[in-house]
C-alpha cells in the first residue's frame, strides 16, 4: 500500500478528458512520469496531491482515499515540489523551511537542524525570491523533504515533483538530484514521483517509469530498460530518437540534426 491510482479519468472540459483510465501504483524508489506536453502529467500530479477530485476512479494514499485524508496527516505522507516556487512576499529561507513544520510547534533548534542538514547555513537569512532559481529549488527540495521527515511518521511517504529540474543549470540539477537520492537512501520509507522531460535524468534516477501518451493514457509502465526504447517512445512523442551509447552508457535522446557548423 502506498500511492495507488485506479482507473483515473479527468476532464477539464466535458468530453475532452486529459486523463483516461490511468491505473498505476507508486511504492518504493524513484518513479518518473514521462509524456509529451499536454498528456496530463501535471493534472495527474494535482489529482495525486488531492487538490481536486478525479472524475472517476480512486486514488488511495496508504490505503485511504486521498480526498478523505485530513490535511495534517496528508502533509506527513505527501510533499510537493513545483517547477518553481514563487512566494508572493519576501520570506527568508528560514521562514520557508519553517513551513515544513506547519501545524506543529517547532522550536528554533529544530529549524537550525534542518538548515544544517541541508547545508543551507549561508542562505538561511536571505530572502527566498532574491536567490537564483537553482538555489530556490534547492531550498524547496529541503522544505519538502524536511516535511516528510518530521514527526517520525512510520508509514510510506511520497515526494511529488513536477518538472523540478527543468529550469536549473547542471550544477543545481546534480545538487538537487543527489540530495533527493541521499535522503531516500537514509530513509527507506520515502518514495519519489517525478515528472521529467529529460530521458538521461530519467534513466539515471528512475527505478520505474510511467509513460503517458498524448491521449492521457498509460502507454507503458515498467523499468527504465523496458520503457526507454525507441520503438516505444517514438509513437508516443511522434518524433525519432537516437542512441547515445558507449562502454558504460546507453541513452536515448531526441534525433536532432547536427548543426552544419560555421
Amino acid at each position, binding site marked *: 500500500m502506498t500511492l495507488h491510482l485506479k482507473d483515473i479519468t479527468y476532464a*477539464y472540459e466535458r468530453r475532452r478528458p486529459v486523463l483516461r483510465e490511468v491505473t498505476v501504483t507508486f511504492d518504493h524508489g524513484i518513479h518518473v512520469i514521462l509524456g509529451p506536453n499536454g498528456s496530463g502529467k501535471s493534472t495527474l500530479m*494535482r489529482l495525486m*496531491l*488531492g*487538490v*481536486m477530485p478525479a472524475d472517476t476512479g480512486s486514488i488511495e494514499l496508504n490505503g485511504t482515499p486521498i480526498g478523505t485524508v485530513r*490535511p*495534517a496527516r*496528508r*502533509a506527513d505522507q*505527501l*510533499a*510537493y515540489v*513545483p517547477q518553481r*516556487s*514563487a*512566494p*508572493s*512576499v*519576501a*520570506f527568508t529561507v528560514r*521562514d*520557508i523551511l519553517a*513551513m*515544513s513544520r*506547519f*501545524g506543529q510547534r517547532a522550536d528554533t533548534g529544530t529549524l537550525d537542524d534542518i538548515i544544517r542538514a541541508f547545508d543551507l547555513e549561508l542562505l538561511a537569512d536571505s530572502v527566498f525570491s532574491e536567490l537564483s532559481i537553482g538555489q530556490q529549488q534547492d531550498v524547496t527540495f529541503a522544505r*519538502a523533504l524536511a*516535511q516528510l521527515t518530521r514527526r517520525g511518521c512510520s508509514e510510506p511517504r511520497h515526494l*511529488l515533483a513536477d518538472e523540478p529540474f527543468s529550469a536549473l543549470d547542471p550544477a543545481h540539477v546534480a545538487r538537487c538530484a543527489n540530495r533527493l537520492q541521499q535522503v531516500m537512501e537514509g530513509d527507506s520509507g520515502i518514495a519519489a514521483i517525478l515528472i521529467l522531460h529529460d530521458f538521461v535524468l530519467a534513466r539515471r534516477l528512475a527505478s520505474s517509469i510511467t509513460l503517458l501518451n498524448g491521449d492521457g493514457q498509460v502507454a507503458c509502465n515498467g523499468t527504465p530498460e523496458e520503457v526507454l526504447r525507441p520503438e516505444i517512445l517514438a509513437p508516443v512523442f511522434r518524433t525519432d530518437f537516437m542512441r547515445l551509447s558507449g562502454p558504460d552508457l546507453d541513452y536515448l535522446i531526441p534525433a536532432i540534426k547536427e548543426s552544419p557548423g560555421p
Partner: protein
Amino acid sequence: MRARTALLLTILIVLLLAAIALRLIIWDGGVDSLDFIRAGIVQLFGASDFAVEGFSIRFRLRMVLSACLVGSGLAISGVLLQGLLRNPLAAPSILGITSGAGLGVVLVILLTSASTGAIAPPGTRIAAAIIGAIAALVLVYLIGQRRGVIEPVTLLLAGVIVSVICGALIATAYQFMSDQGVAAAIRWMMGSMVQDVPWIHHLAVGLIIVIGMVIAMRIAPALDVITLGAEEAHSIGVAVPRLRMTTFILAGTLAGVTVLLAGPIGFVGLICPHIARRLVGPGHRTLLVFAALLGAALMVAADLVSTRAAAWSPAGQIPVGVLMALLGGPFFILLLRRRPAAFQGGGP
C-alpha cells in the same frame, strides 16, 4: 519577539496615542484652549456641572474611537486579502467590499423607510453592511477565478467593475430620498466619519474587530504558507478551501462594518499592510498587529487633517475619504509601476 520589532511596536503605539491626544484637543475651531481641556477632563470624570457650551468630551472620544476602529478594520482586512490572494494590490476598497457594504446599508435604509416610514434599526444596518460586503467580495472572486485559480488582472478588474456598479446603484437609490437625505448620503459615500452613530454600532464594530483579529491571528500561519500558492500550501497541510472561505468572510465583515462608521474609505486597507510589511517583514502574525495599529493611527491623523482643512473650505467639509484618496491614489500608482510582476503571478 526580536528587539527591533519590540522597538517599532513601542514607537507605533506612542504615535497612535499622540495622534489620539492631538485629535482630542484639536477640533473644528483649532487647538482648544486650556479651559476646554480642563473641561474635558472634568466631564470625563463625571462632574457634569462643569460645562462649556457645545463641547462634549464623550462625543470626541466616540469620534476618535470610530476613526481607530475604521482604520484598523480596513487595515486588517487588507492584510488578509493581500495574503490570501497573493496580490499586493488587493484591498477592501479595490475588491468592492466597501461599496458593497455601502449598497447594503443604503438599500435597507431605503426599503425600511418605504415600508414602515422609520429608519432601519441599527442591527439591520450592521447585518446589511456585512452581507453587502461579503456578497460583493464573493461576486468579485467568482468573476476573477477560473476553476478555483485566480486570475489576478481579472480579479482586480472585477473589483473595479463591482465597485462602480454598487456606486451606480447607490446613486440610483438617492433618487428616492429627500434632498436633505441625499446631501448627507453623498457626503457619507465619499467617506466621512458619521457623527450620529448609534452607540450600539461602536460596540458591535469594536467587538467584531476584536473577535476578527483573534481569528486572523489564528489563521496567520496558514496565510504565511498560502503565499507560496494554493497547490504548495495544500501539500504543506493547509485546508485551502476552508482558509479561503474563512478569510473572505473575515475580510468582508471587518471592512464591511467600518462603512457604518465612516462610509466607504479607500486606500487605508491598501497602504497600511505595505508599510507594515516594510517595517516588520511578511510574517502575518506581526503584520496583522502592526497594520491594525498603523490603520488606526493613519485614520485618526487623516480625520484630524480633514477637519482642519475643512476650516478653509467654503463647504466646511472635506470628507476624510477624499483626503485618503488624494493620499492613496499616488501610492497605488507607485505600486502599480514598481511591481509589474504582481500581475504575472498566479493566485491560489
